[in-house]
């Protein structure tokens, strides 16, 4: 795994295999999710893969009722919205993700800051597409 390039393509391959991966710059120790080939601070390529715990908390969210064509095909609509948002991982970095298990009929009730855990969503109408990074409220 350590010899995979620190690219979006590798990030996706990890997701497809049920792993949320970031990378750490061995020069300045900064952690990045998703991974990146060059540290924007050091501008060095001394990265190593880091397996993320998949735990985090909800920073911000939205429920979308006007989906783009691909998600419309998956059945999302005004009457069947889906949620996306920003999750701050336990390790301190953030990711954008699809959100499951939130009460979208009453968005005001969705509590920011609540603990979340990773879930790997099979993409596409028949589940054969790329895995989509998801989060859901963490089990107690």
């Amino acid at each position, binding site marked *: 795994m350590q010899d995979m390039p620190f690219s*979006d393509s590798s990030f996706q391959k990890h997701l497809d295999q049920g792993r949320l991966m970031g990378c750490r710059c061995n020069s300045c120790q900064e952690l990045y*999710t*998703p991974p990146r080939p060059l540290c924007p601070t050091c501008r060095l390529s001394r990265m190593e893969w880091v397996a993320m715990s998949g735990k985090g908390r909800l*920073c*911000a*969210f*939205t*429920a*979308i*009722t*006007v*989906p*783009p*064509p691909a*998600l*419309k095909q998956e059945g999302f609509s*005004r009457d069947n*919205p*889906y949620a*996306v*948002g*920003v999750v701050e991982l336990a390790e301190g*970095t*953030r*990711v*954008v*993700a*699809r959100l499951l298990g939130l009460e*979208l009929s009453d*968005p005001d009730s969705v509590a*920011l*800051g609540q603990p979340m855990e990773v879930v790997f969503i099979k993409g596409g109408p028949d589940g054969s597409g*790329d895995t*989509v*990074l*998801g989060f859901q409220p963490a089990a107690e």
Partner: protein
Amino acid sequence: MNKHLRLAREVVVVGAGMSPFGVFPEKDSKDLFVEAFQDMLASVDKGFDPDDIQALYLGNFSNDFFVHQAHWGPIISDAVGLIPKPATRTEGACASSALAFREGVLAIASGLYDLVLVGGVEVMSQRSTEEVAEGLALATVPYEGQVGFTFPGVFGVTASAYFHKYGAGRQHLMDVTIKSHLNGKLNPKAQYQATLAEMMEAKRQKALAKGAPAPQWADEKAFLGDPQANPMVAWPLHLFDCCPISDGAACVLLAPAGIARNFTDHPLYVAGMGQGSGRGLHAKKDLTSFEATQAAAAEAYAMSGLEPGDVQVCEVHDCFSIAEIIHLEDLGFFPPGHGYRAVAEGKTRRDGIKPINTSGGLKCKGHPVGATGVSQVVEIWHQLRGEAGERQVPMQGLRVGATHNLGGTGGTCTFTIFERR
């Protein structure tokens, strides 16, 4: 390195024009730009020979996607008789023509040219709403599109973070929308020239004409809170929080200050300008501000020697109501967390201490994305010259105005300060 942020020579706006903004099934980009060009020609007080224009910089985001035709520089240049002069297209998503403006200023400041046309155009209405959403989502960052973010989705998340941090709510977004419609009502080029009260009455009349029970709303906020009248798009954003799908064009004429009086006795000086870049939601340090705006503003204030309090009237990029509130803070007009209160207190109304989006903003004037940045300059041109008609800001000694344009979800932002001297 040049830390002074100074142009090698001063640049002025000597003419400005725009087409009406709206939905025009019979008009293409050439037609709309020609209308803007003719409006600009008529605005040059002392007249001039268009053959003297030396170059065109044209902002266009994605006519490639919207009308399946790219390479608009020479097409538009030909439409207004500028072949074979150089024509350069700039792309910065919804800030595309602000980048054209900036390139035009730099070309004149460098000494290369003495007369430059800068403009922008976009035709979006030939696509369905879903397709436009898909086209605009091309300007989010890749991870956002992959998990299902739309453009409204990114700003919905931003609003959710802002509400949580500062205790604002939907009623504060409504304050922005109500104000936008009051201004749009007075702009004859705007896509929506009606106040919310007028739109509510029109809906009542329409229902009565059909023999249906007429809806009743106590006031504008009751209307905006009615999910039938104002459906959700991306929580907490609803239809009336979002700018429309629009067609339109705008252009302005730039010259060095030294020859300004050949064109007009009332030019607008480019007192300061800045441009910044930003990151996606996952990498932003603060979900409730736009770092690209802050960088652009810092540069423009430094170049001009002016401060936020000196700006008397400003067009900001209100693609969504929450965005207007955040820009008020990022541009330094109000402290972080105070933007929504300023709007609620009427400070940003036309007769307030800081009039914002007197044109009606993107919400009511319309948002043909590639034309928006330059159309904002057109509004400030009218305001600072005292030619804004019914929507003229009533402020005494109006002298300094500014424009703020945001591209994508904040990846590209510009801020330009204009001064009448």
